[in-house]
């Protein structure tokens, strides 16, 4: 009886161990080069869980742009403008545009705003242009309109600096020695 039980147990153990081998469909083949090749067949589901990281943009932009405009400037561009440097520190390209421009000409009696850069004798026009140095002419300027707009100014690839200048035109009858303000809001978005 004992011999029979131990024989059955032995058979059971052998059978159980062999099931593992049969369940694992991997077979080991000697490639002959000394490497052991592991082959897989049959497939097994493995769940991969990924998290899509948010796209972060990092930029340096101006929040205030001062400039002078004078009829006595000899070139077509009547503005004395600082360099407006913008920096894209992101890993994605960005575009910078004018979202809104607030204009206050209350100190310039009888003066109106020109949205196009072509000024009558009692008009002022101001725009921005991408340039390496302050431009003397008005070609390529993006003119500021009063109120809401969507005027693209400059595109920057990842880790790039860009430079812009204010340009402008002023009519001959616009009063001098007065201050006016045009406040554009520059907005950045992923390109």
């Amino acid at each position, binding site marked *: 009886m004992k011999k029979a039980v131990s024989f059955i147990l032995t058979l059971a153990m052998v059978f159980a161990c062999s099931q593992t081998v049969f369940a694992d469909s991997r077979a080991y083949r000697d490639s002959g080069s000394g490497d052991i090749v592991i082959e897989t067949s049959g497939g097994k589901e493995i769940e991969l869980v990924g998290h899509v990281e*948010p*796209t*972060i*943009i*990092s*930029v*340096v*932009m*101006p*929040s*205030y*742009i*001062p*400039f*002078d405009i*004078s009829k006595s400037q000899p070139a077509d561009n009547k503005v*004395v*403008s*600082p*360099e*407006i*440097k913008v*920096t894209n*520190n992101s890993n994605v390209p960005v575009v910078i545009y004018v*979202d809104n421009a607030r204009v206050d000409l209350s100190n310039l009696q009888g003066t109106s705003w020109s949205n196009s850069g072509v000024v009558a004798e009692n008009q002022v026009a101001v725009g921005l242009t991408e340039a390496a140095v302050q431009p003397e002419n008005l070609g390529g300027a993006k003119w500021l309109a009063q109120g809401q707009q969507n005027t693209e100014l400059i595109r920057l690839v990842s880790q790039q600096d860009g430079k812009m200048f204010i340009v402008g035109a002023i009519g001959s009858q616009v009063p001098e020695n007065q201050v006016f303000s045009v*406040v554009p*809001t*520059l*907005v*950045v*978005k*992923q390109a």
Partner: protein
Amino acid sequence: MKSRKKTVILVFLAGAVVVLGIACFLLLQMLPSRNSLELENNATVGIMPGIDREQRLKELQNELDKGLIAFSINTSPLFDPKTQEGNLMLENPKNNAKLLVAQVVLNEGQKTLYTSKAIQPGSYLERIRLEQPLAEGVYEATVYIQAYDEQTQDLIGQTGAAVTLTVQNQ
């Protein structure tokens, strides 16, 4: 007698020389001279503003550089429809030296959804809760970022970032 006469003549001549000298001195004082101009008290010392273009450019550049602001932001924050909380992830870097205030405005209708308090340099706003709830969906918005002087809290200027708000169950 003779020596007395000589003495009188000498004294007379000396007196005449002295008188002549005084007369010449007084005459010279009365005449107009190149070195006697009266200086203008109303004049200001220095270069007149508007004349030195290079100097003026430096002043304008200095003003603009003070208004530069750096920031980082999540371009597509995700909001929970129940809590209206989302990951805006707006950073005010340490080198800004300005306080930032963020305002999230819906492009359609220009409705203000959220306004932050002042964010100090070297800190960030990871999550916000919309003050005006949104239904599930995707919305285009602009985050207007106002910069304030850290000491005086005067408004320096404003810039913005375009974002896409998504409201959905996570």
